[in-house]
């Protein structure tokens, strides 16, 4: 059984440590495995580790699975784990954020390892679910002991070839063109689906990708542009599998500068006034956006996290009402009865219909008198700009890589410092109380206490209207009628769930 998959992008490399990006991890995750993985509902499941427990606040012990072999036939041992973590935290690795909190990995015996963290670290197993284990021997034999070293211009065998323990082996790879995978006959576990061969093709252009599905050139494709969902469903050849994605779209506002970069308001920053922020919030017709721009493929959100994320509480997830009049009033109270002019930055090829969302928002804001000078551009120029915080008003999407609310608090909400806190808090929202909580949450091991603190932090943030949450994006996979698969909310597509009739 062969399944042909078309995707918007491609894994840039087969090296599991070279890039911390979800598509790359999704592809390499079929060949390599972590110690702990996530199941269909994102629950943690044993993978190369059969069990784990916290032996002291700072120490975790993992029992490794026995009898596992790499694709080249070599057995999997604790040495491979040690090697992989050394590799992943060394030069050229992009996985350091997963290993930063680990102080040391120790080998207890051939199938037991111990992790010592720098501070109490309650969510370590979850964090490790994207850290894949490589073979020490193979890497050494193939000069792949380090992730690619661009400085020296030295290529890395692991970029093109792969030797993991996963359910599929890499058979052939042409970067950006095609990658073929074949089922691993010696896999330690059970493979749910019946697929034997997988052909993975990147197809960047939306129309072409839809055409490929409709003309039967691919069996699975991802994502389906929202406007084509109906067409695919109506084609009789394929249907669209839709479901919520672990990605929240929101708007941020510069709350730090004393004068906005590009605005008609001089001498002060209107976004420092909560009333203005709230006016913006209430001016956005989120249901309209959901209905027309997203064609239903989105769930309006009141927080920057949602179901599936550790620490989320549905009770908090209520938006302020859409109310143009109230918004106008707030604006007038804040001293802008006639609105003002402000620049807005927006990518047009990063999130689902991102450009259109911004346009709709701009139209919404126009109704309360705010003139938005929208600048929509490709992600290539958008991100460098907003990351320098050269923006007053921007759109961003976030998917917490640890499936934990702390990640969001730390990256998006915490006050900005130069050590990486609030790194994506591009509008520099800052509430010291939230910061305090964030720090505590990081090392709190009591789950209930921790959740309460998360809730408190989010409440503070919501009351401040620190960001303008929009919605949770939806996944849309086009699947031919003869294919069955499981859609995971983190947009990972493990081949082992795919069956072909």
């Amino acid at each position, binding site marked *: 059984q062969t399944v042909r998959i078309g995707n918007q992008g491609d894994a840039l490399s087969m090296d599991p440590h070279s890039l911390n990006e979800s598509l790359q991890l999704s592809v390499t995750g079929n060949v390599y495995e972590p110690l702990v993985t996530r199941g269909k509902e994102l629950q943690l499941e044993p993978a190369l580790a059969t069990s784990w427990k916290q032996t002291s606040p700072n120490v975790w012990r993992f029992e490794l699975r026995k009898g596992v072999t790499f694709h080249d036939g070599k057995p999997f041992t604790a040495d491979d784990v040690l090697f992989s973590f050394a590799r992943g935290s060394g030069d050229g690795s992009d996985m350091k954020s997963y290993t930063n909190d680990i102080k040391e990995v120790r080998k207890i015996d051939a199938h037991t390892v111990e992790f010592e963290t720098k501070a109490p670290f309650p969510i370590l197993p979850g964090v490790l679910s994207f850290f894949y284990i490589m073979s020490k021997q193979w890497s050494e034999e193939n000069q792949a002991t380090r992730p690619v070293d661009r400085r020296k211009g030295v290529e890395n065998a692991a970029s093109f070839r792969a030797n993991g323990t996963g359910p599929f082996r890499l058979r052939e790879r042409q970067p950006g063109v095609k990658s073929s995978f074949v089922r691993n006959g010696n896999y330690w576990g059970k493979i749910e689906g019946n697929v034997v061969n997988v052909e993975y093709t990147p197809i960047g252009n939306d129309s072409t990708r839809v055409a490929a599905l409709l003309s039967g050139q691919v069996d699975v494709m991802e994502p389906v542009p929202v406007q084509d969902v109906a067409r695919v469903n109506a084609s009789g050849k394929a249907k669209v599998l839709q479901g919520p994605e672990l990605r929240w779209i929101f708007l941020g506002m510069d709350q730090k500068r004393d004068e906005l970069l590009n605005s008609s308001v001089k001498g002060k920053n209107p976004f420092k006034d909560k009333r203005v922020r709230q006016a913006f919030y209430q001016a956005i017709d989120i249901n309209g956006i959901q209905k027309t721009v997203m064609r239903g493929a989105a769930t309006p959100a009141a927080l920057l996290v949602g179901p599936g994320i550790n620490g989320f509480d549905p009770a908090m997830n209520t938006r302020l009402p859409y109310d143009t009049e109230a918004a106008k009033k707030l604006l007038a109270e804040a001293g802008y009865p006639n609105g003002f002019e402000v620049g807005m930055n927006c990518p047009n090829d990063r999130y689902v219909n991102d450009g*259109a969302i911004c*346009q709709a928002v701009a*139209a919404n804001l126009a109704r309360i008198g705010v003139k938005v000078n929208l600048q929509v551009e490709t992600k290539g120029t958008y991100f460098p700009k907003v990351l320098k915080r*050269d923006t007053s008003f921007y759109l961003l999407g976030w998917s917490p890589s640890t499936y934990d609310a702390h990640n969001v608090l730390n990256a998006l909400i915490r006050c900005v410092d130069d050590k990486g806190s609030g790194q994506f808090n591009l509008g520099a929202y800052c509430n010291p109380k939230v910061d305090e909580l964030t720090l505590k949450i990081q090392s709190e091991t009591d789950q209930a206490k921790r959740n309460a603190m998360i809730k408190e932090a989010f409440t503070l943030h919501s009351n401040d209207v620190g960001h303008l949450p929009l919605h949770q994006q939806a996944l849309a996979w086009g699947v031919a009628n003869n294919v069955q698969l499981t859609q995971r909310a983190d947009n990972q597509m493990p081949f082992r769930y795919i069956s072909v009739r």
Partner: protein
Amino acid sequence: MIAFVRRWLDSDVGHSFRTSPTAMVAAAIAFVCLFCAVFAPWVAPHNPFDLATLELSNARLPPAWSEGGVSQFLLGTDDQGRDILSALIYGARISLAVGLASVVLSVVIGVAFGLLAGFLGGWVDAFLMRLCDVMLSFPAILVALLIAGVGRALFPDAHDSLAFGVLILSITLTGWVQYARTVRGSTMVERNKEYVQAARVTGVAPLRIMRRHVLPNVMGPVLVLATIQVATAIITEATLSFLGVGAPPTSPSLGTLIRVGNDYLFSGEWWITIFPGAMLVLIALSVNLLGDWLRDALNPRLR
């Protein structure tokens, strides 16, 4: 004015115009497009740039005559609830403006360089022609892509006007080469003609000769080329928009409209892309036909 038109219609070129139905139809279409574009605020039923009037609930309405259409939106609406007809008219305005502006700029640069190279010869010529070679080995789209990127980076807060500036500049940068080459060629022929030498014998300064004698006599082919280049520029702009570096979606050109509409080709909302596409083809075709006709009409050997 009327007398002028009458005299023109009576001239050879005018006659060939009157006897060529294609030319007349093309001119009529071009004129209508130009008229609509220039007077867009008065001609268009809505103002698509006025965000406050957009209503998301009006999004993606089909043309008035088909089921579900609303007479208020003759050609339907796009995904933002913008009236397609108005967007078309404003889009044509932007496309034409970009096309004309970049062609005018290319002509100015190209003709100036061509004249200098052809008239002065020597190392000036060699240098300018190598420059042309360099420009030519950068295919137009590549240059435009790079320039657009640079422009955006240099003017990070670029609003629409600056985005257009970047667009025009990038089309100009590759466009001038053709004019420079053409003009250089004709200048080299022209400068050896006896009327130029007569002026030199009289003691007229070289720059003056270039401007007053040579320039008017090398403009013929430039004119024809320019006509056709307008169409090419409009298409290039559309292509750049397709690649995502063209006119901003808030003030869309025809190219941007097509690119946006492109996403709706499969979803059955054909009007979002077909109308701008048809408009673009209509403009480009009529301008091309005019250029074509002009080329033949101005070529005495074909008369």
